């Protein structure tokens, strides 16, 4: 009888026959894969099923989670998608025991796993066998412990979850500085001798030989950043040069690693919304959008926002896209040496949009506007009219003006055409997303391939360009602003009357046990939020699939072979924001 049951259950496992022994189980959120067969199975999915895009790779620590033991404490989660067909992807899970957290690296199947695997190694200490550069990326070599593990406590640790009991009703609480010996946010392991301390050597880039391009000089290692005017924040890259040609490049992140994910696990569900503002601080509305979409999946029917709120979300997200692309084009020109004039013009338009945000949400940059099941507050007719005025008159005129004085500018063409080439295959393999991917000719836009919210109601084109270079990325951003204007015009015409929030606003969020991956097409690319809930008021896991970070996978491949001056422009065209890169 038991045999019968297993044979009856077995066909229920997806892809069970593809690679024998690979699929060991499935839950309602994904397929559980045997780690020894992971590479084979991923190859099968990529080659035979068309899941060519590794979107998100992360891990979860289930220490103390209901129903979990030390045998399956860690879980590495892969979100795979199909860039040609679109639609829902497939989720792979590999469960790992506490005492042996290692699995094969997927870097040969999906080169885009590179930075994400390093991130997981840094945070959880899970080893990816076969990864060529498995080093810490956000923290530094020698940091004590792996901070995202549930049993790792930070120096200012107060309690597992917010709200902390010490704040009320007897608000005499010990100042965080007073609770640690050093009066500062530090802790040192017992037995460590600071006098015998030797700092770890800086990382050196892998050198790639470029046939025919070598001029037989000494290789020079140049350090750029973290304080460099053209790295768009505190980003550091270590560049190996042969003459002036880049032969190796190593990105070094973590200079703005603000522990969003650890803090997010301590926070309440609601409390994370203002923190998402600070991820990609140029486009806070999009970040809000992604996070509330993910949590609303967990909330079920309760979380579905009313119509007007959906329209307002789309309006805000598209305005954000325009503001972000304006900023990014202005600063790309900055990197090209057109210091500040183009940026000044684009910042003007951004200010106009920020004024609208400020009126609707209360803050220029950190909007904190969306809530689970709606938005914070309604906008009045005057606001909509001013928005219409902006969308119909001012912004299109400004885009045309930008187009007029930049697009055919000979200097711009000379500096950007053919620079930073990234073919469509490479772009997909490296998990590149957003305007970068579309500038390589891949028409992959989440608003089309996996429509969320009400994007299926609007008419717009997915902008692509076959140039595959910096100029194409610039063109795509320019055109995307026009498409955003198009969406905005439709949304502003159709916006219905009605409530903007479902139910009564409250600070307690009731979510079901489970997990969700919510993603939006942010201005920088696919911004995903992977949340795991144990049914309580706080997320068990809160992971951000950060487009700026994952796009950096392509930085070294794009820069190698070009001049060092071009590397600045190539980085500028990726359009990273360090708050999101480092989180």
């Amino acid at each position, binding site marked *: 009888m038991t045999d019968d049951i297993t044979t009856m259950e077995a066909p229920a496992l997806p892809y069970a026959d593809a690679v024998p022994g690979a699929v060991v189980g499935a839950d309602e959120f994904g397929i559980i894969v045997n780690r020894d067969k992971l590479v084979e199975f991923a190859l099968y999915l990529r080659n035979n099923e068309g899941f060519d895009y590794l979107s998100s790779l992360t891990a979860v620590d289930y220490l103390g989670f209901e129903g979990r033991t030390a045998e399956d404490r860690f879980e590495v989660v892969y979100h795979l998608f199909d860039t040609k067909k679109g639609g829902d992807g497939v989720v792979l899970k590999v469960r790992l025991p506490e005492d042996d957290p290692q699995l094969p690296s997927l870097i040969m199947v999906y080169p885009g796993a590179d930075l994400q695997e390093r991130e997981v190694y840094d945070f959880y200490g899970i080893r990816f066998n076969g990864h060529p550069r498995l080093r810490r990326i956000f923290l530094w070599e020698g940091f004590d412990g792996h901070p995202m593990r549930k049993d790792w406590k930070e120096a200012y640790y107060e309690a597992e979850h917010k709200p902390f009991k010490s704040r009320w009703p007897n608000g005499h609480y*010990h100042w965080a500085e007073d609770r640690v010996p050093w009066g500062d946010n530090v802790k040192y392991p017992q037995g460590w001798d600071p006098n015998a301390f030797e700092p770890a050597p800086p990382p050196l880039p892998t050198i790639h030989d470029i046939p025919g391009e070598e001029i037989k000089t000494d290789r020079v290692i140049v350090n750029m950043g973290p304080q460099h005017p053209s790295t768009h924040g505190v980003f550091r890259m270590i560049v190996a040069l042969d003459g002036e040609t880049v032969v190796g490049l190593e990105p070094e992140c973590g200079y703005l690693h603000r522990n969003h994910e650890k803090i997010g696990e301590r926070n309440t569900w609601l409390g994370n919304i203002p923190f998402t503002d600070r991820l990609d601080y140029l486009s806070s509305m999009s970040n809000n959008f992604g996070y509330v979409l993910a949590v609303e999946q967990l909330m079920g029917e309760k979380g579905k926002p009313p119509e007007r709120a959906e329209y307002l979300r789309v309006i805000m997200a598209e305005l954000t896209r325009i503001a972000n692309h304006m900023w990014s084009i202005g600063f790309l020109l900055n990197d090209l040496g057109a210091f500040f004039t183009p940026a000044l013009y684009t910042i*003007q338009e951004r200010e106009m949009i920020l004024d609208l945000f400020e009126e609707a949400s*209360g*803050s220029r940059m950190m909007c904190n506007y969306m809530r689970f099941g709606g938005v914070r507050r309604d906008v009045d007719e005057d606001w909509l009219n001013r928005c219409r005025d902006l969308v119909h008159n001012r912004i299109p005129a400004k885009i045309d003006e930008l187009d007029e*004085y930049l697009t055919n500018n000979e200097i711009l063409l000379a500096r950007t055409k053919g620079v930073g080439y990234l073919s469509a295959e490479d772009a997909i393999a490296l998990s590149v997303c957003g305007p970068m991917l579309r500038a390589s000719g891949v028409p992959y836009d989440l608003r089309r391939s996996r429509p969320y919210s009400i994007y299926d109601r609007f008419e717009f084109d997915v902008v692509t360009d076959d140039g595959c270079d910096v100029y194409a990325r610039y063109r795509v951003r320019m055109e995307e602003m026009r498409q955003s204007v198009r969406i905005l015009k439709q949304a502003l015409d159709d916006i219905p009357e009605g409530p903007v929030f479902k139910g009564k606003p409250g600070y307690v969020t009731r979510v079901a046990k489970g997990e969700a991956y919510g993603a939006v097409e942010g201005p920088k690319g696919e911004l995903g939020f992977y949340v795991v809930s144990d049914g309580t008021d706080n997320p068990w896991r809160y992971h951000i699939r950060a487009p700026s970070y994952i796009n950096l996978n392509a930085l070294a491949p794009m820069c190698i072979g070009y001049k060092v001056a071009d590397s600045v422009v190539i980085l500028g065209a990726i359009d990273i924001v360090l708050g999101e890169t480092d989180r």
Partner: protein
Amino acid sequence: MFGIGILKGLGVTLKHTVSTYIDDFSRTPTRYADSYETAAGRILRQPTNITGIVTVQYPEERRELPENFRYIPMLLYEEETGEDRCTACGICSKVCPPQCIWIVRDKDEKGKPIKRPAEFYIDASICMSCGFCAEFCPFDAIKMNHDYELAVYDRFPGLIYDKDELSVPTSYYAALYPQAWKQEEEKRAKKAKKPRRPAKKGPSKPPAKKEPAPAAKAEPAAPAPATEAAPRPKPKGGHWSPIPEGYTGPLITSELPLPPVPAEGVSPSGVPWKRIMELREKQLLHYRERRKAEGKEIKL
């Protein structure tokens, strides 16, 4: 022809230069078209009929802030009675994402908690201006202030706001938020019309005057300079300071209105309290010495 693109670009910048002057002179008074004078200076609105953007010449001119603008929270008290609206229910401190609000609930003579805060602190060096406290306060007692002129020379007395510094009269709120005030008053009026249960929370408690501060305040350690334009009293002294000028007392915080550190037990960071205090004292001495070596104490 090579160079056309560059010339076009230069043409655009030239057009911008010219149009600035056109906006400034020929279409006068475009710049001040929508602006108005107040005691604090001229308040500017961005005119819609120009192509550029108006420079706000702060501090003589200010941008008009929308009603919903949020910066640091403030606490409201009823102007007529001097009574705090806050009932020390603690919702704001619970929803605060970075947990920067802490409240001590007041007690009557018998030690029974009453609905009034004895102390109320907000650490402005942690506050992320998210506005959750104001959004979820059921008593409309905490609202977001519009005052952004808060820069100080000393962080510790200066940026920890206590109840006195946070308190503003309801009329101040009504002036800042005319629309929200109107709506809330209508709601209140409606509520007042409804028959209420006999145990009313308001009149049952003694009307607390605003002036006498409940707890003994820490002496202003460093005089934070006040400005006239500011609508609320400027931070005048907190309860913890690493090294107040001329301070020679004990260097640990136990003599300040914080709870004394327990003599035994382990702090949440896993280190015995006793050891923490030893090292804290050393660290503060070190800090004081370093500050001296810096020679940064500038007499004002």
